[in-house]
């Protein structure tokens, strides 16, 4: 196949069934592409050909025996490097886990493999998923395949770039404040954050436990829906995973959108929004109206407080979660004269500057004398942000906004100013704090050819509705509006 028609879950299946290609040949083809493109893109940190080829051989054997193919049989995938893979290096983009090999698979990984997926390797990301540009990876930045001088977004930059460049058919990323949706927007592909609790986080190395979620990147909505149908659902190994029935996403997404109420919050279209992004997203909304949706203007008054809330809640949780990296049980150890000395030296050497910055911010917000003013207050404002969403969903079926205020920025453009980098997440952190699902879908390009993302939020466990709207946009040509 040419680069213009990337492989999809559907085309892989057709080609395998028609015996036009074997799963092993397909894996070989993808590894050849990775060898060619990865030195430039840096999307993959580790490859696991042994594991991939043995899985491909199992798929080929099933085909030879005429057995019914699993939904992702032979589909090459990439896994963000914060998600555990047994026997395959999992570094979280950090020096502190440079040599770490997990003794078990994350549930999402296990489910993908049980569905026939061929795991090619681990995708680069910001260190411990902390960043909005992938420039915080200890193993170097990822380049945006659409514009090589620009960032792919973050923190799941490698997962987004791999799929956008055709180095994987689908991938898994994680989203804590926008880390799936924003790179999806920057790289011009659909990218979904499910409801909190919808997908098991077992084996996801924790950043902020009340916010972290695993979700898919794909080149089309049907593939995203297929991955969702496989990774969603309760898992007894994750006590925060929800026992809520998983709908048939592939059937749900083809339903007509006539009569759906589209909430458009004015708070997401104000100062700071790039005019080209604004115009395209407005055009996308107009297209939805043409498809029979009703536009409902909304006010979500606490939107402006979301970044401040997020960077207290997330860093507080991170300061606690990252306390485990102390040189005792796994990863890096730098010897010291005393136990305390060893802790400090290990963490000094092992963590990058953004991780240290967030640990210190979170420690400060939780520390005696500051807890009420920062952490407790942020938790209260989080309730207000969640209430904005709950009240909105009494009036509308979905909420449509831009995914990010600008298209992908240049490498190095924001690294000197952490706060400016944080503001790249201004439209995504709201949904993270509220626990709702959201997707970013392509919504045309700027005059310079940079992808623009439109974000669709749904109510809790409303992934089907979100995907349905995304599919309607896709069918109507909204992705290239």
């Amino acid at each position: 196949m040419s680069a213009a028609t990337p492989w999809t879950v559907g085309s892989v299946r057709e080609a395998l069934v028609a015996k036009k290609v074997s799963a092993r040949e397909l894996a070989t083809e993808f590894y050849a592409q990775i060898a060619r493109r990865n030195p430039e893109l840096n999307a993959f940190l580790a490859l696991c050909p042994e594991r991939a080829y043995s899985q491909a051989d199992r798929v080929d054997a099933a085909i030879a025996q005429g057995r019914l193919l699993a939904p992702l049989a032979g589909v090459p995938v990439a896994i963000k490097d914060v998600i555990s893979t047994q026997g395959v290096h999992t570094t979280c983009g950090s020096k502190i886990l440079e040599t770490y090999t997990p003794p078990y698979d994350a549930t999402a990984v296990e489910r993908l493999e049980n569905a026939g997926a061929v795991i090619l390797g681990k995708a680069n990301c910001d260190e411990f998923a902390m960043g909005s540009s992938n420039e915080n990876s200890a193993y170097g930045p990822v380049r945006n395949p659409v514009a090589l001088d620009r960032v792919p977004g973050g923190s799941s930059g490698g997962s987004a770039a791999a799929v956008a460049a055709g180095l994987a058919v689908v991938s898994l990323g994680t989203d804590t404040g926008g880390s799936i949706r924003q790179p999806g927007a920057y790289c011009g592909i659909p990218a979904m954050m499910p409801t909190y609790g919808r997908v098991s986080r077992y084996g996801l190395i924790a950043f902020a436990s009340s916010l972290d979620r695993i979700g898919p990147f794909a080149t089309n909505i049907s593939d995203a829906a297929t991955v969702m149908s496989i990774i969603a659902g309760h898992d007894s190994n994750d006590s925060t995973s929800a026992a809520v029935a998983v709908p048939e996403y592939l059937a749900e997404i083809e339903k007509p959108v006539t009569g759906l109420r589209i909430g458009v919050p004015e708070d997401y279209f104000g100062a700071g929004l790039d005019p080209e992004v604004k115009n395209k997203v407005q055009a996308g909304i107009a297209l939805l109206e043409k498809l029979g949706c009703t536009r409902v203007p909304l006010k979500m008054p606490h939107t402006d407080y979301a970044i401040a809330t997020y960077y207290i809640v997330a860093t507080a949780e991170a300061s606690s979660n990252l306390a485990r990296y102390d040189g005792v049980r796994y990863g890096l150890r730098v010897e010291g004269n005393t136990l305390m000395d060893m802790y400090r030296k290990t963490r000094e050497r092992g963590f990058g500057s953004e991780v240290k910055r967030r640990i210190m911010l979170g420690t400060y917000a939780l520390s005696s004398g500051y807890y009420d003013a920062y952490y407790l207050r942020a938790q209260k404002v989080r309730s207000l942000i969640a209430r904005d969403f709950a009240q909105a969903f009494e009036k509308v079926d979905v909420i449509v906004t831009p995914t990010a205020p600008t298209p992908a920025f240049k490498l190095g453009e924001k690294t000197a100013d952490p706060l400016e980098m944080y503001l790249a997440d201004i439209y995504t952190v709201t949904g993270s704090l509220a626990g709702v699902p959201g997707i970013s879908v392509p919504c045309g390009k700027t005059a310079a050819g940079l992808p623009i993302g439109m974000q669709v939020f749904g109510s809790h466990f409303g992934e089907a509705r979100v995907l349905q709207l995304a599919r309607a946009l896709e069918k109507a040509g909204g992705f290239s509006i």
Partner: protein
Amino acid sequence: MKISREDVLRVAQLAHLELAPEEVETYRSQLDEILSYVGKLQELDVSNVEPMTQMRPRNANGPGSASATGIEPELRDDVVVPCNVAEAVLAEAPDAAKPFFRVPKVIER
């Protein structure tokens, strides 16, 4: 100024981070800028607002064990299941003496 040099050193100590002398001022000014921005949370009246202490989404579309506060966590039965991972876990340790992790001497006489 929200945060002083001493604050940075205190927080670094609490978090078991060692900072190079030249890093202290960089972090101080960055944390100061971030905390000044976060100060906007003080604008809101939150006196009658409950803090969101955990994320428990409501099931908006149909069956499930939804309650006023969201989905109740699914608790598994309290039964012992085998977990023979000690060897694999210790294999990742920088220094282990089965069945222990080994660390520098903690107790001084």
